[in-house]
């Protein structure tokens, strides 16, 4: 009934709602939208008009998930949705590979090194070491200070060239 691929008012409405949800800023990194992060898995309008959204967390313990769900709810209501149902789905696991090019550029401009390609293929070894480029001076001469940074999805790095510390998005 609401086939997103078909043209018509139903498809237009879904696109508008999806755009509204994707435009919501991430509460911890407001420079990124949920669309940039790629955490909105699906959006459907059910036959009774209920808008069903599937979100995926960037990490299982992401403390921002409740706020994200509230913000999406609010944005959809403003875009004209009546009932909204938000579901959190874990599989397939979110990966930084889903982050848009725009998102990566915004992160860099904001002073956070964007993630490299995620090395974790199914069942393969997890590669933790990659060199983050300094988002301030562009130098590749950097080192990781700690695997863990100001949010669960970032690590703490420092640049040997300009001596500035910076956050780097973990490639997961």
């Amino acid at each position, binding site marked *: 009934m609401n086939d997103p691929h078909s043209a018509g008012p139903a498809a237009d409405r879904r696109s508008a709602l999806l755009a509204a949800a994707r435009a919501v800023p991430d509460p911890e990194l407001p420079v990124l939208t949920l669309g940039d992060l790629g955490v909105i898995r699906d959006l459907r309008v059910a036959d009774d008009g209920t808008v069903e959204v599937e979100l995926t*967390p960037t*990490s*299982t*313990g*992401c*403390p921002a998930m409740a706020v994200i769900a509230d913000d999406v709810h609010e944005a959809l209501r403003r875009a004209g949705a009546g009932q909204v149902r938000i579901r959190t*789905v*874990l*599989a*397939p*696991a*979110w990966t930084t590979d889903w982050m848009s090019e725009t998102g990566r550029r915004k992160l860099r401009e904001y002073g956070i090194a964007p993630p490299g390609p995620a090395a*974790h293929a*199914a*069942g393969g070894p*997890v590669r*933790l070491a990659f060199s983050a480029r300094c988002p301030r001076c562009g130098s590749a001469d950097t080192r990781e*200070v*700690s*695997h*863990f*940074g*100001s949010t*669960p999805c970032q690590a*703490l790095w420092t640049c040997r060239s300009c001596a500035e510390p910076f956050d780097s998005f*973990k490639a*997961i």
Partner: protein
Amino acid sequence: MSGLRTLPPLAAYALALGDDALILAQRLGEWVAHAPQIEEDVALANIALDLLGQARTLLTYAGEIEHAGRDEDDLAYLRDDRDFRNVQLVEIPNGDFAVTMARQLVFSAYQYELYTALLSSADATLAGLAGKAVKEVAYHRDHAVQWVLRLGDGTELSHQRMQAGLDQIWPYTEELFDPAGTISELPGVADPATLRSPWERYVTSVLGEATLQLPEPRWRSRGGRDGLHTEHLGHLLAEMQHLHRSHPGATW
């Protein structure tokens, strides 16, 4: 609360894994503002948060299977110590930083094998969680490895204290691989016994590189999966559950 013996086996399994994660998250949280470096405050809090996220998924799932209306909060805050199914390893006090790192090494290495095995689970919820959690645990394990290497292969004093930390937690490691009730007969779950040899290979190689001796304890812990705990768990729960129990049903 009702006894856990009435829980369906899959719920008991999810609860056992969830309780391990929940109790260790609480323990690691105790380090915040007490770690030797501010980066470690942040690291241990992040690890605790990941574990809490895993616990929330697992406890919620256990409650859904049990089908008695208990949610993650009911299970975390309203059970007494005898109803917790975690291994004793995660409830013993943090000790010094070396004791905590020794525990982090053995537990993260165990969880890494566990979640890797669950990736191919027939159970969609467990497989979904594993896909997410295995990436987080890889970071936890690597964090512990770096410290164990640095302290073990460091100064005479750091070596001595790292070895002491290892000796202290080692009697609690074997329990991770004990069968828990009917768990090993369930389809879609990881038989704990099968995790032991990859775990041992990994941990042994790290200890070798860190110039540390594999401890040979004269006793081993038992019974956490059946609700038998050390006296430390009750104190931990008193702190963890106090607020929730003082203000039942409070929201803000």
